[in-house]
């Protein structure tokens, strides 16, 4: 083995220091521009952060592919859902007339919207693919009120960084950054394929996030919280998925 010369040692030291400093600066810049996901800790943090940062630089405003009507799946798959509790069944018996969506957090006008109010708001439809993390998929037409419209009505703060959304199923909650929350395709969907959204597919109200895997399209949505401190929810990982071992950002 050749001995390391003083010059080589100094060079190696300078390179190492520059590398460490560069990483620290990169992490700081990434944090400021919202390029670090809430589940960035742990051994898979580097990969998750690279993926999320790269996607946010590349796809902040991109649109999920929309398909012609002829490509709507004849047999969409109704995924299994955990048994729906008494609260849900009571609301279902009344035809979901009393279903409400609560909105709070960093909004000028906290409150709630009834399902019929949401249905009366301007609607958007898109024919898009939903992909399960398991590998299967289908294409359907989704109709609903764009989330940005609801956020605008509630007077969401421009300082907000995330929107937390919760299911009537206990322990199921999600969040997304503002790039997805204000994205024109992100809907509070109440119709599917031109009819009422079936319960099996998340009816009466499902969050439809087009550029991420199916688990971000949370079923049975009952409340939204607008925030600039996503770490304060749950275990601080951004949603219930990372608590169960799955990544928060599901755009891959």
């Amino acid at each position, binding site marked *: 083995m050749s001995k390391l010369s003083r010059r080589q040692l100094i060079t190696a030291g300078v390179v190492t220091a520059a590398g460490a400093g560069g990483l620290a600066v990169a992490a700081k810049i990434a944090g400021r521009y919202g390029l670090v996901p809430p589940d960035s800790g742990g051994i898979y943090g*580097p*990969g998750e952060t690279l993926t999320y940062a790269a996607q946010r630089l590349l796809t902040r405003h*991109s649109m999920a592919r929309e398909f012609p009507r002829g490509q709507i799946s004849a047999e969409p*798959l109704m*995924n299994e859902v955990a048994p729906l509790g008494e609260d849900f069944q009571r609301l279902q018996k009344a035809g979901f007339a009393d279903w409400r969506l609560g909105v709070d957090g960093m909004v000028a006008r906290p409150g709630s919207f009834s399902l019929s109010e949401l249905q009366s708001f301007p609607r958007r439809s898109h024919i898009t693919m939903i992909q399960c993390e398991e*590998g299967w998929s289908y294409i359907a037409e989704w109709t609903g009120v764009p989330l940005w419209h609801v956020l605008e009505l509630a007077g969401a703060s421009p300082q907000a960084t995330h929107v937390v959304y919760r299911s009537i199923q206990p322990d199921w909650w999600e969040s997304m950054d503002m790039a997805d929350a204000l994205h024109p395709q992100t809907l509070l969907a109440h119709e599917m394929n031109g009819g009422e959204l079936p319960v099996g597919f998340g009816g009466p109200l499902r969050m439809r996030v087009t550029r991420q895997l199916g688990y971000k399209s949370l079923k049975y949505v009952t409340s939204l919280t607008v925030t600039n401190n996503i770490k304060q929810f749950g275990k601080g990982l951004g949603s219930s998925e990372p608590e169960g071992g799955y990544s928060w950002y599901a755009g891959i």
Partner: protein
Amino acid sequence: MAQTARLRHSVLVRVTHWLTTIAFVALLVTGLELVVSHPRFYWGETGNVNTEPLFKIPIPSSRHLVPTGYGYMLPDQNGWSRYLHFQSAWLLVLTGLVYVGLGLSRGHFRRELFPTRSDLSATRLMSSIAEHLRFRRPSAEEAWSYNVLQRLAYLVVLFVGFPLIIWTGLAMSPSFVSAVPAAVNVLGGQQSARTLHFFLTGALVLFLLVHVFMIFLAGFWSRLRAMITGRAIELAENGRTGAREERA
């Protein structure tokens, strides 16, 4: 012993070789785990248990949504498998960029991998194929360069296999294809991309098996040592080769 050590493999080749090995093994193991959650493959944009598959892998599944004919389920490990799959993909891509970038600037490909014009003549190719088919153990001098079939195989894996498997992987990403829809459209759809990704895995695993087999044929410990320390067996003056070859 003031012998100047000739290196068979540069630091660049050795470090990127083993980082790629780590990434590949992690991608393979986690990829197979992900397949277990839906061991059915489709062609086109969409597919699920209500649609006719292109083919099924006759194994049990980790999810009871999938009718497999088995009365039991395999453990579901998709959470960490997904995290590790994508982290390993980053390791593979970044390692590949360093290898290709530095390799080009240092003439690694020209020197080690691009076959010469005479290598590519029909007679030379045929004789190389014939030698391989006889499973002939390569001579000591051959430890210092790659033969023409080896060069072609490595080039195909590096510049066809890896780019295609990365492309088909990205074509499954709902966010990536929102920015680059052509990446999935030209493959015939998202499920086609998944199926192609699976076949490409098979092709790379086949390469790996042949690669490891050839290393055994050539002398496992000497080739392994060359890829770790950079040193190949020296042809010593006394005519003995690989004095340190005997295993402890």
